[in-house]
């Protein structure tokens, strides 16, 4: 299977968006288990959409949490509750009399509380507003904390990738024609993932483009043209590459490198 083509087909995005049939979903899962780069890609898509959703988060009104917990309690213990409710009905007698008097006892209490409630209303509204604002602030903090946690997790993953015993780093430097240019290739031999990062590279002249090459047994292998990426990009994994090079070509690239500007050998 051509993993790059598979990823580029957009099927993983559809998987995360829940737009696949169950058969297709199974296929994606099998592939994700088999190929780590597919799993990595899936994770990245999920994380991006999760963060996007976080940016659109809205705090639900305060009392809702209690309602939810109450409902969960209800569905978790439906039976015991019903048994308890039946008991008072059966015991009749004195209790029934008391129940008959209940409205007369409750009515005055209700009146008092209504008056109390009326005067307390304004205060309450104010408190409600303050508590809602505080609730919102708390949510903001939590969302921010979650985002930072994700970020830390990402740092950890990135450090693991770069420091992984199977990751090889190739520093590529500009030659005489492009002094000071610097790019890096990070290849993980186990997961067969390669990242290409531009550290310093001048903008190419108009109608020109840089093209990345791997050198395998003195033969250049085309890894594609690129416009200077701000972030590292995943590129083809080329097994047995002895060196990497960047040439300056006419827009669209060339079949063979014509004007090599940046070069770096793999150290063994």
């Amino acid at each position, binding site marked *: 299977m051509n993993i790059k083509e598979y990823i580029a087909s957009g099927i993983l995005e559809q998987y995360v968006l829940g737009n696949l049939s169950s058969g297709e979903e199974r296929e994606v*899962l099998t592939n994700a288990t088999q190929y780590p780069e597919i*799993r990595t890609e899936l994770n990245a898509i999920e994380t991006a959409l999760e963060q996007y*959703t*976080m940016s659109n988060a809205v705090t639900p*009104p305060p009392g809702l949490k209690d309602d*939810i917990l109450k409902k969960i309690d209800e569905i978790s213990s439906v039976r015991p509750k019903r048994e308890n409710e039946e008991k008072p009905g059966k015991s009749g007698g004195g209790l029934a009399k008391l129940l008959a008097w209940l409205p007369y006892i409750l009515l005055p209490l209700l009146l008092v509380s209504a008056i109390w409630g009326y005067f307390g209303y304004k205060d309450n*509204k104010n408190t409600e507003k303050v508590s809602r604002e505080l609730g*919102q602030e708390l949510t903001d903090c939590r*969302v921010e904390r979650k*985002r930072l946690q994700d970020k830390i997790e990402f740092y950890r993953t990135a450090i693991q990738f770069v420091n992984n015993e199977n990751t090889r780093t190739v520093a590529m430097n500009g030659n005489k024609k492009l002094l000071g240019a610097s790019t890096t290739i990070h290849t993980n031999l186990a997961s067969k993932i390669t990242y290409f990062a531009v550290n310093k590279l001048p903008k190419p002249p108009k109608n020109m483009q840089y093209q990345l090459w791997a050198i395998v047994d003195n033969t250049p292998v085309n890894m594609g043209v690129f416009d200077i990426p701000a972030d590292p990009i995943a590129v083809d994994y080329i097994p047995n590459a002895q060196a990497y090079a960047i040439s300056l070509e006419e827009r669209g690239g060339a079949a063979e490198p014509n004007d090599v500007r940046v070069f770096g050998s793999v150290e063994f």
Partner: protein
Amino acid sequence: MNKKHTNIEDKIVALLKQGDKEAIVLLHEYYSPALYGIILRIVFSEVLAQEVLQDVFIKVWKNSDKYDSDKGKLFTWLAQITRNASKDALRSSRYKQDNKTDMLADNVGNDSSLSHVPHIADSGLRKTIDSLDKKYTEIIDLLYFQGYSHSEAAKELNIPVGTLKSRTRKAILELRRILGNELIITLLIILINAN
């Protein structure tokens, strides 16, 4: 670079599997604003949205044994349940509305104590996302927030399904770029190279 889980996610999943209600407390704490945000995008009524959010938590609780971390992140599962519940609620409220025209209109935002101004949780992140091309946000919004199928979204945007699919991928790639996950790698690589 395998499974990426934050600790809190693992904790919630473990509690859910044990049937511990603490899972719901934590889920509410960490995810309810995000899920509520999705619901509001679909149902547009706060009264209905609150019902749907309750419904979502009940569904999560009842189906907790169905979550499988091999299939994806907890949030992806939650978002899927949320989208489906919202769409169902919208459908049945429309149905009710057809039969009883005042149903929704009377309930929407009239009670000032119930309606509170939707608040965007993280303005920094929001600003970053605002720099995303509208062409891309509208696609993500339709598919992810409003739960459109590909064919529905293609119809809505008046483009072929094939174009929609490739644009979806571009949109999410662009989103990933903007969210700067990979930017962090750049910094790291620069740092590591400098040493």
